[in-house]
């Protein structure tokens, strides 16, 4: 039986108190919201914080404000269930509702938060294992070891960004409000990430994601497709987020962001640029899908083979675009492959 390691639990009521507590305890402390990512990792001894700062009692962190027309602000502590079911998000930021609704299972979405999914730990076949398993095979550099078991000659960790909502929020042009003990800042969501399996977030350890800010949705449509083995529970082993602003029957602006093919969400700017000013014809979609597969460089460290995940990038980008164009052969939100 795997139990949580002992810790001191603090339950501040305000963001400021939480940030202060994190600053005070430094590297000994970690924040926890829904617990659905951190607690399994703590049970496997991937994290052993002496102090946990619980965020569930902080009212400022919850709630969804605004409307699609003028933009929306989503408290980072909002549950994934609430994001997926919110009528204004469903209507104006469809891919976000889809992605939030595809995270793991219904129970987990009732606990897990949007902020938690944005910050979800990177994953790897050699890392998401029990302590005994990792000890037996030899620890990796992400925890307790000094080499990468996926790419032994590499000096970096290749664990995979496994958030469903992050690529979507990136494609929607979202920003995040970060709050620390000494102040706050608002940054584009993409600035939150870097391509390293260990240091995958740029936020300071004492900073908390307070809000996700969505720009006005006028004229934008979006889609998210997720590849995983089962229709529930599984993390993405490929995510494709596409957002388009149409000008009449032509694409005005486009963003394509891939999930689970690197240690951070990975944009496909050449593919997106090829869409601008064009009609969404089947020929163009094929060309854009080929371009989007370029930045997709999965490694052999998740479910399914990496050549297959690379190949499916092309397939899913094409399906997402066909769905947005109203052409036949558009993808269902979640692909189940058994």
């Amino acid at each position, binding site marked *: *039986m*795997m*139990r*949580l*390691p*002992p*810790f*001191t*639990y603090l*339950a501040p009521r305000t963001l400021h108190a939480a940030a202060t507590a994190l600053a005070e305890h430094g590297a000994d402390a970690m924040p926890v919201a*829904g*617990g*659905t990512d951190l*607690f*399994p990792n703590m*049970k*496997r001894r991937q994290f052993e914080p002496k102090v946990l700062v*619980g965020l*569930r*009692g902080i009212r400022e962190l919850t709630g969804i404000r605004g409307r699609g027309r003028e933009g929306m602000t989503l408290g980072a502590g909002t549950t994934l*269930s609430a994001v997926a079911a919110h009528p204004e998000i469903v209507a104006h930021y469809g891919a976000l509702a889809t992605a939030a609704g595809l995270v*793991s*299972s*219904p*129970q*987990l979405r*009732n*606990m897990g938060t949007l902020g938690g999914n944005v910050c979800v730990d990177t994953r790897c076949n050699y890392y998401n294992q029990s302590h005994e398993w990792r000890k037996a095979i030899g620890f990796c550099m992400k925890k307790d070891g000094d080499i990468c078991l996926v790419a032994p000659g590499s000096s970096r960790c290749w664990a995979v960004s496994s958030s469903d909502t992050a690529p979507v929020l990136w494609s929607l042009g979202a920003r995040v409000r970060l709050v620390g003990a000494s102040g706050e800042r608002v940054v584009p969501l993409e600035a939150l990430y870097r391509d390293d399996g260990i240091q995958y977030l740029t936020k300071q350890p004492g900073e908390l994601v307070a809000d996700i800010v969505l720009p006005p949705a006028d004229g934008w449509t979006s889609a998210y497709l997720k590849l995983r083995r089962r*229709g*529930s*529970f599984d993390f993405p082993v490929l995510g494709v987020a596409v957002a388009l602003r149409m000008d009449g029957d032509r694409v005005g602006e486009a963003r394509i962001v891939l999930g689970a093919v690197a240690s951070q969400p990975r944009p496909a700017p050449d593919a997106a640029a090829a869409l601008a000013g064009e009609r969404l014809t089947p020929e163009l979609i094929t060309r854009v899908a080929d371009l989007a597969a370029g930045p997709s460089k999965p490694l052999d460290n998740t479910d399914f083979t990496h050549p297959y995940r690379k190949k499916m990038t092309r397939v899913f980008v094409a399906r997402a675009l066909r769905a947005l164009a109203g052409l036949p052969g558009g993808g269902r939100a979640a692909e189940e492959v058994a």
Partner: protein
Amino acid sequence: MKSRLSLSVNGEAHDVLVPVHKTLLEVLREDLGLIGTKHGCELGECGTCTVLVDGEPVLSCLALPADLGGREILTVEGMAEGGRLHPLQQAFAELGAAQCGYCTPGILVTAKALLAGRPTPTRQEIKEALAGNLCRCTGYTKILDAVELASLRLDHSGLTSPNVGRRRPGEGAPTANETDHSGLTSPNVGRRRPGEGAPTANPT
């Protein structure tokens, strides 16, 4: 270090003195003796530890009791009322929707939450609601049938009535082949209601 916590479980207030790092699952089973809630994967990947918190299904293996003061927790032990099984429990027993039974408590409370919010779910809605509960025995068909049957009975007895789920078999009120225990051989028991769309494939 232990903390004193007050938890409301199945309508009863409990004061417990437990280490703060014990999960709700551990406290329910080890400190309160409520072993109906089952201990499965411990990692949020199976759903057998599901309990309801203020009516919502959550994973007790990943919940801290320290966060649950003032919330109402419901476990499978709290489903029967006055010694009478909840209609879901009755339907599961009649249709053989449990084999080894290990997933059953989690599925029962999850289905209870579904029916509270959506008294007459479609089969697809039941599948989606139960997508976080693994069963390794049944193949799910009888589980879905049993939730449909319970939904029919609750719907016919009127969810707003104070007698919800209290009616005994054969005790008046229309029933859906209540006494037909053959389950799948009947065209009606636990099946779609008229007008509810095309037959759906089995889930697996």
